């Protein structure tokens, strides 16, 4: 009886989960495909068009600037966060484990709990003015977005690489030291190559998170629907344009459907990231 009850409960939960996920995919897909199926927008037109003017007399739905913005801010964030996260995890496991465990790790994990609107506001109040005074331009743009995102994905990258470091076979390091290698030689020649797949997993998950982050980026990137000429010029991401316009458009209008298409693209990208992580995990096992 106990057995049965437990089993039924687990199965019910799984069913709810599957139905939920499927409904979300289905809903976004129905809305997101309608521009191509009923509003007469070409897929190529949307993916490679450079002009986004859905409210013009002749509406244009070129989403290339948003794709460019999303990819460039996420990759930039990963570029900044990867070395920071990796060095933090080395520090916490190899150099000063005690301090790392008691102070640094909780501090970094705390970053994950801060609401994104706070990140956006801090970015707008601190990072943007700093960039504005240091570089030409308004301070907003891809660099500001990348910096804010890098701080947001730091916990993801750090936690995963720390776990990987802690689970390293102990014989590896001892063997290296026994052969007379210094600590830095051990870290750079043994530890880093061994944990590279896990580190990459952390980075990909970080990029996935950065890719889907909306509010914080929207506040600091500027949101002009154009491919920017520099890192300090107003740009847009898929998420920022969705958050800006979704509430102002009526459900079922071509403009609103086009926004759902962008959401669908985000969803597909998330699947791609999940696949990449799977591949990396398989390599790590070997």
């Amino acid at each position, binding site marked *: 009886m106990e057995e049965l009850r437990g089993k039924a409960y687990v199965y019910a939960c799984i069913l709810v989960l599957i139905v939920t*996920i*499927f*409904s*979300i*995919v*289905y*809903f976004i*897909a*129905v*809305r*997101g*495909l*309608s521009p191509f*199926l*009923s509003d007469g927008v070409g897929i190529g037109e949307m993916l490679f068009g450079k002009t*986004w*003017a*859905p*409210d*013009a007399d002749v509406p244009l739905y070129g989403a290339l600037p948003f794709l460019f913005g999303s990819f460039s801010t996420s990759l930039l964030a990963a570029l900044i966060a990867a070395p920071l996260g990796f060095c933090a995890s080395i520090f916490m496991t190899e150099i000063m484990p005690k301090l790392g465990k008691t102070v640094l790790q909780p501090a970094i994990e705390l970053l994950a709990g801060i609401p994104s609107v706070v990140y956006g506001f801090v970015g*707008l109040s601190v990072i943007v*003015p700093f960039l*504005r005074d240091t570089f030409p331009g*308004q*301070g*907003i743009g891809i660099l500001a977005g990348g910096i804010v995102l890098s701080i947001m994905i730091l916990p993801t990258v750090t936690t995963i690489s720390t776990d990987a470091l802690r689970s390293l076979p102990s014989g590896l390091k001892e063997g290296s030291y026994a052969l007379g290698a210094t600590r830095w030689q051990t870290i750079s020649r043994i530890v880093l190559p061994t944990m590279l797949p896990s580190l990459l997993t952390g980075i990909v998950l970080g990029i996935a998170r950065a890719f889907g982050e909306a509010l914080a980026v929207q*506040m600091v990137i*500027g*949101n*002009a*629907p*154009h491919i*920017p*000429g520099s890192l300090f*010029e*107003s740009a847009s991401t898929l998420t920022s*344009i969705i*958050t*800006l*316009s*979704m*509430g*102002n*458009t*009526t*459900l*079922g*209008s071509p*403009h*609103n*459907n086009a926004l759902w298409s962008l959401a669908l693209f985000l969803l*597909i990208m998330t*699947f791609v990231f*999940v*696949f990449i992580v*799977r591949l990396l995990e398989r390599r790590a096992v070997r």
Partner: protein
Amino acid sequence: MKKSMTLLMTVVLGLTLAACGSNNGNNANGAASPSESASASPSASAPASESPSPSAEKLTGSILATGSSALQPLVEQVAQKFMAEEEYSGITVQVQGGGSGTGLTQVSDGQADIGNSDIFAEEKFKDADAPKAAELVDHQVAVVGMAAVAHPEVGVDNLTKQQLVDIFTGKITNWKDVGGADQEIVIINRPSSSGTRKTFETYALGTTTEDLPGSIQQDSSGTVHKLVAETPGAISYLALSYLDDKIQVLKYDGVEPTVENITTGKFPVWAYEHMYTKGEPNPVVKAFLDYMMSEEVQNTDVTELNFIPVTSMQIVRDIDGNITQK
């Protein structure tokens, strides 16, 4: 491998089904197919239902008003007062934001009783959706004025209509060309779907503008205010309630953006705040809308939140911008 295959199959299946579904269900241009409304979250409160009993004349029911975030604070404040009245204690009013488009969609689909909007429904429901606008009844509850604003150090306090047009279309890019400091102009705009932007374009510029490269777009008035106050050379536009001494308010063709100038029709940049109902409102909703339009609310809550009472307007403007004296 097996796991990834299952995942892939799920996605493909979902997409295929969706493609078929949207073929059948979307011919009516976004008419929700049953499966969609099932997956969309149903609104928290059912449309107002009444239980009229012959003995008690007290109205009971619930009202859901959603939409414009600009109008939200006013509706919320009035709703609180309304529910505190002895006479209406049987009615609960819920107010949500989400933007004018959301409000109009939800009231049109019957998910909300009242849709709050910054612009006329006819301006949102276009072409194939036009019949949806015809079903809605407009209740204009307040007027919101808007002024062009700039960073305090641009050295300009007045712009003509033509100068504004030239700035917002990118013809003029430096403040010195309009008699100000030698400072590059930074346009801080609203997204092209925004009702605030539409009002500004229609009544201040008289033309639609494109999103220029290098311009900044923000949807929230608070963020716009912050950016204008801090970004050298910034220009934007804000509702009167956001004007303060941190930003330079710009006169329009020499006319100050004051309540008086708006009510007399001297200052043209303003818009009605609308509360739409689908068809004529039921007694419960009507009680709330009447309360909204009562002298007391119009002259206290409305002015307190820096809106202009509809009752004090000496002119009436229709959707095409034709102005008649009251």
